[in-house]
């Protein structure tokens, strides 16, 4: 019995990232979906900021409000222990998220603030939208800098 336990532990240690169990997989999918919502709506705002699409106050406001709504989700259940890139496949979340917790909460606050600023600015005019874009990008990057690994 003892030997079997040891072998199992050894096998896990050697195997490296494993296929995630259902609960972990679901959490990873959920948070990636949240990122997808950010990305889609940022694309709408970014196209206007870049000038590839004409500014449309209503569309910009809707996109910014979506980002604000996504940023206000309680994310705790989407980031369970053991859902880092060293433990399971299909994620680039570094283990530092959990080993340095709650440091990442500060980045979350910055994201939420930047989303609020964008929600207030996007429907005003193009200059306001462009001005709010930098802080929002910075908020995305601040997390990705420290906590996202490479492909």
């Amino acid at each position, binding site marked *: 019995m003892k030997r079997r336990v040891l072998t199992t532990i050894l096998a896990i240690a050697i195997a490296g990232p494993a296929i995630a169990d259902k609960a972990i997989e679901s959490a990873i999918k959920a948070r990636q979906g949240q990122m997808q919502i950010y990305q889609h709506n*940022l694309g709408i705002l*970014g196209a206007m900021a870049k000038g590839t699409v004409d500014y449309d106050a209503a569309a910009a406001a809707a996109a910014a409000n979506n980002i604000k709504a996504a940023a206000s989700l309680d994310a705790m259940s989407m980031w369970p222990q053991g859902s880092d890139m060293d433990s399971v496949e299909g994620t680039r979340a570094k283990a530092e998220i959990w080993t340095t917790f709650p440091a990442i909460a500060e980045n979350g606050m910055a994201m939420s603030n930047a989303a609020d600023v964008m929600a207030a600015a996007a429907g005003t005019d193009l200059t306001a939208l462009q001005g709010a874009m930098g802080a929002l*990008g910075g908020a995305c990057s601040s997390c990705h800098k420290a906590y996202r690994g*490479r492909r």
Partner: protein
Amino acid sequence: MARIFRYLGLLGLAGLAAFYMITMPRSVDEARFDGLTGDSGRGASVFHASGCASCHTAPKVEFSDTPILTGGQSFPSDFGTFLAPNISPSAEHGIGTWSVLDFANAVQRGVSPGGKHYYPVFPYTAYAQMSEQDIVDLKAFIDTLPASDIPNQPHQVGFPFNIRRTLGGWKLLFAGKDWVLQDAATPELIRGRYLVEAQAHCAECHTPRNPLGGLDRSNWLAGSVLPGEGKVPGITPKELDWAPEDVAYYLESGFTPEFDSAGGAMTHVVENMGQLTPEDRNAIAAYLQVFK
């Protein structure tokens, strides 16, 4: 028999002399810097374009207009782990006592004021192409930054790479090269070439290296793998299908065309590139387009 030994002895001596000559640290031509005065305001732009703070601030420090260049970040490589030194204006622990020539020799020749070779983890092979005025302005700006009294940590490099003299041979092979883009046809391309090749040193991470650690210039900016960092993407149009406007916007905002955001070490680069003028970011994008 004795004659053979004498012959071999002479050959050995000649070899030692050749090694000595080849590996001798070489200095910049002093006359190049005669009569130049530094402008710290212009130097700030050189500083950001050249990405000095990305490596020389303490680990995990946020971007600042007036960074403290404490050093201490570590850079793993196939030859050992290098620790960035303190280059703040501290007289004791930084570069506060350096003359303009000391500074130029370090930045453009990879040679310390004491006449020792620096490891090429410090991108002096790129900075060698910088103009004299930019070097002088850069020093003027660094002189205005806060001093840090944190002492340098030794590199963790094993034999034979810990013999700095061997770097003279490395430099003979890989330093002192001309521009990669030989004919830059427009002022924008000339500017882009200067930013990419002389200042921002994009190739240091984005170009693959040969077994001796020299850049593979035939695969310029075609992507690489960095120890401790992982895969670094290629950034020429062959590997990266982005419009020039997309490249410029990425450097400004950190957003990819798909509105993913920059991560890892590239976030430092975006912070630096965000300080440049829109024209400079466009010039970088135009330069990359040439490598179709």
